[in-house]
């Protein structure tokens, strides 16, 4: 379909009062040109979302931005540039666009319904004036029969047949635009009624789907803690394999999976589930994904008083994803008489490198850990929140003994007696941890269906041509004329095929007439 815009659209009403202005505003908003400008604005408004780190995508990167350049970050934040896609100005653009879309689609729906019910218009007097026309043998009746058999909408009159095809184009177009509206609503509803949580779990440990169990929990505004699906699981085992030496991509993961023992609800029987990338665990629409992994060496730490003050796994943050060299922080508030803390560097496949040690492979072929011990007041009672992955905030910690840049790494089973009789640390083994994300988004299916409808609508709207043909009697035969109302369409070929078919179809009738 072609759209001819009236030149008067933008003329301002002179002295029409509030109603007139509103009407004028509505007309401008729903004009095709405004829609076009809003489309441009929408594209432009998205650009900063890819140039600056986004809170919703990578909050860590945003925090780093604030650390490195607080003044600039402050200014960027003032304009929501770290939250582009939830910012008021982004919302303004898409809400205007969708308002414009509604204003455009509703009237077009009305027009289209009328169009569908209307019969094709009578044939013009002179068909040879049309862009496509041909004189062929045959008669009106057989032409009409043929056109009807090919599912044209047909009207007839005195000496002419009129036929039309291609209303599906506009139907598809409307379907597409409505689907976009539904998609927006589905995405919005998913945000309100869904939630997302992240958690780190060490091998052997369990997780149950409650707000308190998450490290980070982001509920939609309409979600209450009781809405969470009450499933739980234990991480039995995690396995990863990597490309071995001799390949350019040595150390690239080949496969990893986590074995879970899942309980769908408190009383339910336990079931085994293998969690992989691309294969989330689905419990009543709450999906749990495997999104990261790393190492958690285990330690037994004894205080200066000879009592075991800590025993367990310490998840280490991965510094380098191609070697899995990781950084560990151990805080031991229970150590007596003085509290202890340790920095550690975990090397899954250790080799010496001059005075230093390196990891050369992500698999745990020779897992060692370098330890830097501290003692003093951890200040955990002060109530200020602290990261479990950082010792930087502790001003009252003193290094124990001589600090060296690269202490000799411990192998599993080895231990260090701490200087100044502060106690002992034993490196007892290696476990692995995984990070999980649980997502519940009730808008997923509606969004999927709307997307499918959008594609279907697009295909109809872009590939179907609206066209009309007329047939008029002429002595000894008929004239066929045709035109397409879709610009850019190549109707010539179809028209030629159609006239040929009409002629062919008419011929058997002629044969019958011969006795």
């Amino acid at each position, binding site marked *: 379909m*072609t*759209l*001819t*815009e009236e030149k008067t659209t933008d003329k301002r009403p002179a002295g029409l009062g509030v109603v007139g202005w509103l009407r004028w505003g509505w007309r401008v908003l729903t004009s*095709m*040109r405004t*829609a*076009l400008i809003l*489309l*441009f604005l*929408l*594209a432009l408004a*998205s*650009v900063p*979302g*890819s*140039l600056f780190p*986004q809170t*919703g*995508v990578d909050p860590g990167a945003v925090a780093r931005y604030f650390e490195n350049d607080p003044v600039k970050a402050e200014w960027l934040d003032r304009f929501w540039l770290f939250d*582009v*896609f939830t910012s008021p100005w982004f919302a303004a653009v898409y809400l205007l666009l969708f308002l414009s879309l509604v204003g455009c689609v509703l009237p077009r729906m009305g027009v289209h319904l009328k169009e569908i019910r209307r019969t094709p218009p009578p044939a013009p007097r002179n068909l040879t004036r049309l862009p496509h026309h041909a004189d062929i043998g045959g008669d009106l009746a057989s032409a009409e029969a043929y056109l009807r058999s090919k599912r044209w909408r047909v009207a007839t009159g005195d000496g002419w047949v009129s036929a039309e095809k291609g209303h599906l184009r506009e139907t598809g177009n409307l379907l597409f635009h409505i689907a976009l509206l539904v998609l927006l609503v589905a*995405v919005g509803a998913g945000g309100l009624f869904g939630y*997302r949580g992240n958690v780190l779990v060490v091998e052997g440990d369990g997780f149950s789907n409650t707000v308190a169990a998450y490290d980070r929990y982001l509920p939609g505004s309409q979600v209450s803690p009781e809405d969470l699906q009450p499933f739980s699981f234990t991480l039995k085992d995690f396995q990863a394999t990597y*490309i071995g030496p001799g*390949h*350019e*991509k040595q150390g*690239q*993961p*080949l*496969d*990893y999976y986590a074995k879970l023992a899942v309980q769908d609800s408190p009383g339910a029987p336990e079931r085994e589930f293998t969690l*992989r*990338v*691309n*294969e*989330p665990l689905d419990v009543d629409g709450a*999906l749990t*994904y495997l*999104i990261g992994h790393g190492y958690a060496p285990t330690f037994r730490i004894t205080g200066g008083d000879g009592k075991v003050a800590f025993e367990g796994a310490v998840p280490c943050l991965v510094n380098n994803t191609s070697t899995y060299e990781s950084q560990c922080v151990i805080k031991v508030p229970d150590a007596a008489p003085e509290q202890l803390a340790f920095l550690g560097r975990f090397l899954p496949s250790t080799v010496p490198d001059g005075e230093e040690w390196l990891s050369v492979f992500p698999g745990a072929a020779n897992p060692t850990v370098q330890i830097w011990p501290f003692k003093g007041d951890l200040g955990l009672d002060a109530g200020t929140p602290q990261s479990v992955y950082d010792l930087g905030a502790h001003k009252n910690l003193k290094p124990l003994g001589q600090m060296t840049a690269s202490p000799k790494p411990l192998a599993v089973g080895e231990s260090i007696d701490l200087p100044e009789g502060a106690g002992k640390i034993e490196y007892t083994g290696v476990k692995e941890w995984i990070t999980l*994300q*649980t*997502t519940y*988004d009730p808008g*997923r299916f509606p*969004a*999927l269906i709307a*997307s*499918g409808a*959008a*594609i279907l609508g*697009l*295909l109809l709207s*872009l*590939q179907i041509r609206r066209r009309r043909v007329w047939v008029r009697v002429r002595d000894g035969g008929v004239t066929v004329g045709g035109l397409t109302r879709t*610009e*850019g369409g190549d109707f010539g070929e179809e028209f030629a095929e159609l006239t040929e078919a009409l002629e062919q179809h008419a011929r058997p009738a002629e044969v019958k007439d011969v006795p």
Partner: protein
Amino acid sequence: MSPESLATLSDQLVLAAILLYLAGMIGYALELAFGRVAETVAERRLVAVGASHEEPEPAPEPPAAPAPWALQAGAIGTVAMWLGWAANLGATLTRGLATDRWPWGNMYEFVVAMLLAAVTVFLLLQLRYPVRFLGAFVGVVGAIGLGFAARVLYTQAGPVVPALDSYWVAIHVTAAVAASGLFIVGGVAAALFLIRGDGPSRLPARADLERVAHRVIVIAFPIWTFAVISGALWADKAWGRYWGWDPKEVWAFITWVAYAAYLHARATAGWKGKAAMIVSLIAFACLMFNLVGVNIFIGGLHSYADVSK
């Protein structure tokens, strides 16, 4: 054949395809320069009528006969393009056999496959429609693109990371490859449209260029839409959400909106012709930025490009 020798063969076929595309370009360029003088004048008249320009029609130049050898050069160009296409196809197939997976798992393979798609589109188009005039430019894009892939993006044949080890590659990436191939042909036509002024020229007529561009974009746009949506479906399986404004997603969205703007521009009074072609080129630039810029400079979750930074 062993995987290693298949991988080597694939690399050699890419080089062969580069040379053959260059040969095709030269053949087509000779035809364009010396083989279509009369045609140009006739087309010009048609365009002027269609666009209802008011300026007076300059007296048509006396039509010179096209040199027969130039037409032969064009035919040879077509043969070279088909051979280059076969080499390009072979390169992608052997890469797939060598790695035992779909051969578009990193940026190098993606670009090789995307150019294969672009040349396929051109060759199929010229079977049905008179669009040989695009050949020289598609040839040069194919050669430069493959050259860029081989020199800058090359990665050794090998397995992919677990997230990519999925049947979604066949759905999502194949759609993106196909749509990108079509958009490239549309981009070439639109660029020529702008390079060529309104006056007489050895380059093809503006109306023809615009028709080619529109035809391929209209086919590509639903495929692109499907590529974006299947990407969202995959993200829903792999990353725990179907849409998260990761840089690649942002630019796929921008590209989509920009091509939608092109389609709307054509339907809007006053935006037909040149303005619409400019919009389509902006959209094409977004597509290319998403491929090159986002993979190399921005990164994000979607950074499976495997390009050494």
